[in-house]
C-alpha cells in the first residue's frame, strides 16, 4: 500500500555535490564517507532524528564548520568559491544590533565594496520584488521577531547567492509569524528559483515547503531517502489535506519511524 503511493525516486542533475564527507565529534563519527547530490533550482528540506547532524551538514556545506575529509562542490567549483546566503536559527544572535534594518541587509554588499547608492537601490528592489514593507531606518531590535528574521533572509539574498541555506529559520518565531515568513520564503523561491536548502524539525513543514525532502538516519548519518514532492506552487495550507501531500508525509513518517526503531 505504502509503496504503491510513494513517489518514485528521482534522478536530478547534481548542483551541490558532497563526496566522501567525514566529520567526527569527540571520536564519534557523525558523518563517514557521506555522499549527497542536490539539484539546482529546487528547494530541499532536511529532516531527520535529533542529533543526526542536519544543521552540521549545512554548516559544513557553507563553510561555517570545518570537516575532517571529503569535498563539497557547488555549481562545479569548491564551496569556498561559491556565493552563499545563510539564515541562522536565531536572528537575535546573528543580526547586528548596532545597525539599522537597512544597514543589516546592505552589509554583504558593503563587504564587496559596492557604492552606497547602489546598495540602497538593490535593497529597495528586493523589498519591492517580494512585497515586503519594513521600516528600514529603525534599529533592528525595535522590529518584531518575524520582521527581524525577514531582515536576516533579505540579508542572505541581497548579494545574489548561488545557494541559500536556512537553519531551522522558524524555530524562534511564534506560529502566526512562522506562517507569514514561510509564505514569504515561498514567494522568494518562486521569484528567484534559487537553490535552497532548509533544515527543519517539523515533518509537515518539511514536506509543505519542499521539492525534495532529504531524510537522514541516526548517526553515523546516511541518507535514508531523497523524496520528491512536485506539487506546483504557490502552495497554500489547503494542500495539507491533498492526497499526494498526505501520502508523501505518511511515507516519510513511516521511514522515519523505521529509522528510529533500528
Amino acid at each position: 500500500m505504502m509503496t504503491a503511493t510513494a513517489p518514485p525516486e528521482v534522478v536530478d542533475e547534481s548542483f551541490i555535490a558532497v563526496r566522501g564527507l567525514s566529520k567526527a565529534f569527540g571520536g564519534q563519527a557523525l558523518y563517514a564517507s557521506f555522499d549527497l547530490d542536490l539539484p539546482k533550482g529546487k528547494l530541499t528540506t532536511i529532516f531527520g532524528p535529533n542529533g543526526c547532524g542536519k544543521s552540521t551538514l549545512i554548516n559544513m556545506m557553507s563553510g561555517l564548520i570545518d570537516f575532517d575529509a571529503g569535498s563539497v562542490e557547488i555549481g562545479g567549483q569548491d564551496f569556498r568559491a561559491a556565493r552563499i546566503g545563510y539564515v541562522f536559527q536565531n536572528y537575535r544572535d546573528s543580526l547586528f544590533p548596532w545597525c539599522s534594518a537597512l544597514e543589516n541587509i546592505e552589509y554583504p554588499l558593503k563587504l564587496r565594496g559596492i557604492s552606497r547608492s547602489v546598495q540602497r537601490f538593490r535593497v529597495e528592489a528586493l523589498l519591492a520584488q517580494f512585497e515586503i514593507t519594513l521600516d528600514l531606518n529603525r534599529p533592528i531590535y525595535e522590529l518584531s521577531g518575524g520582521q527581524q528574521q525577514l531582515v536576516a533572509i533579505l540579508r542572505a539574498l541581497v548579494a545574489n547567492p548561488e545557494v541559500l541555506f536556512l537553519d531551522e529559520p522558524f524555530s524562534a518565531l511564534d506560529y502566526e509569524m512562522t506562517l507569514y515568513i514561510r509564505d514569504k520564503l515561498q514567494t522568494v523561491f518562486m521569484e528567484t528559483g534559487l537553490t535552497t536548502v532548509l533544515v527543519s524539525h517539523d515533518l509537515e513543514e518539511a514536506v509543505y515547503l519542499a521539492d525534495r525532502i532529504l531524510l537522514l538516519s541516526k548517526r553515523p548519518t546516511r541518507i535514508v531517502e531523497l523524496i520528491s514532492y512536485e506539487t506546483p506552487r504557490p502552495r497554500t495550507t489547503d494542500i495539507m489535506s491533498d492526497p499526494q501531500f498526505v501520502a508523501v508525509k505518511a511515507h516519510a513518517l513511516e521511514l522515519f519511524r523505521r529509522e528510529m526503531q533500528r
Partner: protein
Amino acid sequence: MSATDILIDGKPRGYAKIAVPSATTLLPLVGPVVFILAWWLISASHVVRAVLLPSPLATFAYLGDALVHGTMLADTIVTLTRTLEAFAIGAVLGVPVGVAFGSNERLYRSIEFLVDFFRSMPASALIPLFILFFGITDINKVAIAAFSVFLIVTFNSAYGVMNAKKSRILAAKVMGATPFQIFRDVLLLESLPQTFVGLRNGISTSLVIVVVAEMFIGADQGLGHRIIEGEQILHVTDMYASIVVAGIVGYLLNVLFMVADKRLIHWNGK
C-alpha cells in the same frame, strides 16, 4: 535613571510634561534631604564637637563663597583636568591594547595573570614607586592614575572582544568578510558595551587616584591637597566643602558616562 531614559527612548522630547511634580518624581530627593537633616541634627545637638563638624548650612554657605571668591573653583578645575588627562591617556592606550589582546586569546592568556595582579593591587601601593621615577611632580599624579585606568580599560576591552557572540562572527564570515572586516565590523562593536564598563570604572578610579595622589604627593593645588590641608590646619569647613565638591565631581562624571553609554551603545541589553 529616569532622567537618562527620557533621553534615549526616541520619543519626541519637545512634549515635556508641564505639571506639578508628583510624589513619585520627588522620591530621589528623599535620600539627600534626610542625609542633610541628619547632618544638621548631629551638628546642632553638639554630639560631635563643632570644631569637627560644622553645620550643613555653614558648609554650603562657605562652599558658595569659596567657589565664587576663593580658590575652590581653581582647585576643582585642577583635579578635574588631572582626572581627565589620566583617563584619556589610559583609555587611548588601553582600548587598542585590550582589543588586540582580546582578539588573540592565546596572547591574552599569557598576560592575564599580570593584568589581574596589577588590577587587584591597590594603586596607592605604587605611589612611592612612582615618586621614585617621576619625582614629586604634576606628571606623577597623572601617570599613576593613567596606569590604573589603562589596566581597567585593557581588561574590560579584552573580555569584550573575547566574549563576542560567535554566531555574529560566523554570520560575517559566511557573507564573505575578511578577518580584518570581521574585526572592524563585528568584534570591535561587540566589545563596546564591555569597553564602556571599563571606561566608566576607569573614570571613577582616575578621580580616586588623583585625589589620593594630591594628598600625598606634595601638591599645592587640587581637591585632595585642599582636603588634607583642611584636616592639618583644622580648617574643617573647608575640608567638608572640598569633600562635597569631590563627591559632586565624581557623581557628575558617572552620570555623564551613563548617558553617553545609553546613547552610544543604544543596543546594549536589547
